[in-house]
């Protein structure tokens, strides 16, 4: 598995051990998501046009958390779903086949909406490219925006995030891991040397 993938798509099945330095704790993550929710509302002048789509696995609960915050602020719920990009990845023929994650597009669709993609770590940008292709097969949003919890740099494609929880300058030799209570029992962002596992 290439370094880019291991950081962007943490393996769900493996029992994640806590290793490395903690760069964001639970309250940091909570504050970052609250700010992102406000930024989304500000940029789009309310929640009306917004559809949140999380990218599995960890983008999905993040999208739901942002959605809950928007609901708390605006008193209006935002359609929230998930978008699996497995079959649109550019490395699909290079690796053993893997199972699909759930794609859940809100009932009203995405045509004419502002789709905000939500993911945990933005790294090479290849996942987001795949997500853009996947969106194209589902409908034609008015605009697509990107929200990530962590931007760790090292882009390989001309892609940037509109909403960033934390810019985290890293070296390629490091590994960024996002833990969320839904999967890992805690909220934290960790950074570690790739060797130290």
């Amino acid at each position, binding site marked *: 598995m290439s370094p880019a993938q291991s950081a962007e798509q943490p393996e769900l099945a493996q029992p994640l051990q806590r290793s490395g330095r903690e760069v964001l704790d639970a309250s940091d993550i909570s504050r970052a998501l609250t700010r992102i929710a406000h930024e989304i509302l500000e940029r789009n002048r309310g929640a009306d046009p917004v559809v949140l789509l999380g990218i599995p696995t960890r983008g999905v609960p993040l999208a739901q958390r942002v959605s809950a915050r928007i609901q708390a602020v605006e008193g209006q719920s935002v359609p929230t779903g998930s978008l*699996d990009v497995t*079959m*649109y990845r550019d490395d*699909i*023929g*290079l*690796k*053993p*086949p*893997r*199972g*699909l*994650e*759930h*794609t859940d597009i809100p009932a009203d669709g995405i045509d004419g909406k502002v789709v905000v993609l939500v993911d945990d770590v933005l790294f090479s940008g290849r996942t987001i490219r795949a997500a853009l*292709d996947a969106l194209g*097969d*589902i*409908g034609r949003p008015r605009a697509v925006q990107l929200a990530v919890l962590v931007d760790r740099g090292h882009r390989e494609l001309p892609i940037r995030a509109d909403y960033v929880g934390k810019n985290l300058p890293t070296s390629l030799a490091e590994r960024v891991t996002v833990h969320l209570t839904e999967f890992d029992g805690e909220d934290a962002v960790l950074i570690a040397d790739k060797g130290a596992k």
Partner: protein
Amino acid sequence: MKHLLSAGDLSRDEANLILDTAEEMRSLADRPIKKLPALRGRTVVNLFFEDSTRTRISFEAAAKRLSADVINFSAKGSSVSKGESLKDTALTLQAMGADGVVCRHGSSGAPHLLAKSGWMTGSVVNAGDGTHEHPTQALLDAFTMRRHLGSLDGRRITIVGDVLHSRVARSNVLLLSTLGAEVTVVAPPTLLPVDMTSWPCATSYDLDGALAKTDAVMMLRVQRERMNDAFFPSAREYTRRYGLDRYRMAQLPDEAIVLHPGPMNRGMEISADVADSTRSVIVEQVTNGVAIRMAVLYLLLSGSNEEEQTA
């Protein structure tokens, strides 16, 4: 997984992976663009030595929805009718660069031979071989039942009819027992294989006794084209004892569903009003067939060509 030759080769995890993947594939049917890029640039050959409507169309639709290139080959009108052997056909397909071969053959074991002989390197999917197996049919049946009944663990499933000639029955018994269902096979003694002790299921000669305790009943087609012997006295007697009509259907529990792999002999093993009733999921089986075959082709063909990297 490199090939899909027998439903018995699948572990419970593998079977569930295929069914879960099919669940995602099925949601594609509701989208405006029913196409995924997963198999772009791969070639799938439908190698059909025996007549088939739904299986071939279903595999073709599945491969095309995954963006694979599809070549249809049927024995009629090909060099096979000039006497070309299976080996030479396989070598031809290999030379054309087939990544996956979907094989239907009248002889049991033909797909197995294709897969293991070394004549070709692509993945082989058994689409029905003789009276042996038809694993994707079993998978789509299990998928259909799972959508209606939830988990198949402990569910009671009754398979009725011409078990002797049925590849669907064998594949279903193997797969459904892997998934934890309790399978009962009901047939006249002449239409059961000689030794059923190796099959992971119960057998019975009495349909009426089995129906009340059934969550799903699967009627098999009476395969007249394979019957060169008198297996039962008359069609009417068969229908009387083993056919599913409205009165028999009334004995089923309220939630039970009726399946048939098709093509149906209406009025023989299943009456027309049962086939068209709300309990019947026969048309749905066809829809689900495309999803299952997409899942199988995706899992066999999408990854790298290197041998088994996953355990």
